[in-house]
């Protein structure tokens, strides 16, 4: 009896936290295909507070309902910088995650964003984000949001925010800073729903610029 009560409480907590899908759903690891690991070239001076400790081992698989795929693949992208320094915005969703020249788009300095139009409302379970993993670096003020409004004015849902001092003026966040790697940053989206996904950054530990190799959005269409 006691065990049953404990089990019920645990299930309820899990449901409230949004980490457990509807009962009876089959969970599968989301199919992330990783690029080649890099870290070449001249090292840079990294001084980033509140930095997440590296795992030191491959990330655990992320479980989501069967059928969840990258719904951002080849979807249209727009940006606060419509004249990138190099590369094209299509690279953000083209499936190429390598950290080589020609695989990333480089946006101008300071706060910039890319916005992916999923073309329909989706339930989003995870977002995996590769800024630039050729060299160790941490991107500043990473904020990831989902919304049904392309202008991101109403009902904006913030999924990740490590802007501790609100320097990007989007509202402060408490998530940790992190070093870019070939694994990308996996963000648990906890089943939020929206048609548009927007990723902000505010330069990085090496320079003022903003880079995007790929953004993957793992979800299912809302029926």
């Amino acid at each position, binding site marked *: 009896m006691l065990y049953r009560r404990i089990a019920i409480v645990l299930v309820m907590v899990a449901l409230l936290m949004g980490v457990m899908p509807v009962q009876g759903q089959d969970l599968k690891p989301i199919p992330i295909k990783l690029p*080649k*690991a*890099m*870290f*070449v*070239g*001249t*090292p*840079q*001076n990294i*001084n980033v507070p509140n930095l997440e400790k590296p795992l030191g081992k491959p990330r655990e698989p992320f479980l989501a309902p069967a059928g969840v795929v990258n719904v951002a693949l080849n979807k249209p992208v727009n940006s606060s910088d419509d*004249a*990138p*320094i*190099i590369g094209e915005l299509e690279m953000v969703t083209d499936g190429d995650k*390598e950290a*080589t*020249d*020609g*695989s990333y788009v*480089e946006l*101008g*300095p300071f706060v910039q964003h890319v916005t992916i139009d999923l073309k329909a409302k989706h339930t989003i379970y995870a977002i995996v984000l590769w800024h630039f993993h050729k060299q160790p670096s941490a991107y500043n003020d990473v904020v990831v949001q989902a919304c049904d409004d392309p202008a991101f004015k109403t009902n904006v849902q913030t999924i990740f925010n490590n802007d501790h001092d609100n320097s990007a003026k989007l509202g402060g966040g408490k998530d940790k800073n992190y070093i870019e790697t070939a694994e990308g940053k996996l963000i648990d989206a906890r089943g939020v729903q929206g048609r548009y996904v927007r990723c902000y950054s505010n330069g990085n530990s*090496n*320079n*003022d*610029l903003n880079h995007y190799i790929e953004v993957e959005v793992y979800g299912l269409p809302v029926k």
Partner: protein
Amino acid sequence: MSEEKGNADSKKRIDRRDFLQGLAGIPVLGAFALAALKQESYRRTRKAQLASAAVPQGDAAEVNVALLGVGAQGDVLLNSMLKIPGLRFKAVCDVWTEYNLRRAANLLKKYGHEVNTYEDYREMLDKEKGLDAVVIATPDFWHAEHTVACLQAGLHVYCEKEMSNTLEGARRMVQAARDTGKLLQIGHQRRSNPRYIFTHDVLLRELNILGRVVTAGGQWNRSAAPDLGWPKKYEMPVDRLKKYGFDSMHQFCNWRWYKNLGGGPIVDLGSHQIDIFSWFLGANPKSVMASGGTDYYDKATHEWYDTVMAIYEYDTPRGTVRAHYKTQTTNGSLGYFEQFMGDQGTLVLSESSQIGALYREKTQAGPWDEWVRKGYLTEPKILESKAEDLTQGALDVRETISPDEHKIALQFFDPYHKPHLENYFNAVRGLEKLNCPAEIGYESAVAVLKVNEAVEAKQTLYFKPEEFLAQGAA
């Protein structure tokens, strides 16, 4: 020092250390003390920097700059320069017009610099008449031609290391700087790093904190990585590649691995640190032996050695120093650092601010409390708790005692290349002397390029003192 005296001193030092640990245990006092130490440390370093400059004050006017070579390293330099006030970028030159050149011009535009772009440096020098300075970050085998032409065009030059892939080329660069009277800074950026300057000027020279240095070491370990790729849609045409000395896009993107184009990892990586050996020891090497080979990668595309181990011997004013250096490109563990070991202590230093510590030889060195109080070093961290047993009188003095670890209090968080570029532009303005002029860069090139020769010769090679003097420059 006798064993008996050493043991007695150990007791005294433990008392002092206990006192320091007690201080550190008071968080508020500790925080104030640390802030004060850092401030004092910074003040001393700035004072040391200014004292070493010893130059007349000049006009801090705007400097008109051209960039020659804006690939990966040029991009690193450019992003550092964008944080230096008083620079006006006027022109950019790169043979990869479809990608590097376009990218650099677009980047500069974001910061309000409208630049003229060029594929051929000769056209740039012909057309751009208002330039003061150029920053060169082309492949090593182009350095001599580019530098000499720019100096002769009346420009001051910052040229990335390695100064040249041949000593003949490096000598021509030195001679051109002498003939034209223009400045030539070589990109050994540690020479301007505040932590390195502080360590050299204050800890080693003023305090002689290591005592008699007997050995040195260094390494740069880098993880295995695939060859660099390129976007197919931006490929250079073959005739242009050939015109500028490359067989293919693969060779263009990976030129560092090719003989006649670069010098391989021992030159790309080791050059920085072998330069520190000479600077900190106050001497150039008298011999080198080395072993190396392409043991991991494809020899067809990695002509230079992916793994090299070298041993140098130095005759310093205080006696012989032997130094070992290792570079490998198949495992990044333990990263990169330099190490100097004297009878009073050990120094481990790296460009990375996270690495930088001194270890006191407890049985030989006097206390370092004063340097802690003055803010040169942080309070000691006890590395091994067993050391506490020393107070029990059960120590066998023949055993090695774990040293305490002191961090260098001075922190540095700017981009690594920024101080060296600042030094260059301040020299252009007449405000400072160059920290790595052509002659110093040449000495470093002599010491480093000999390693590849020693690998091939499979025997100890000796340097003649006159080899370091860039004599016989054309």
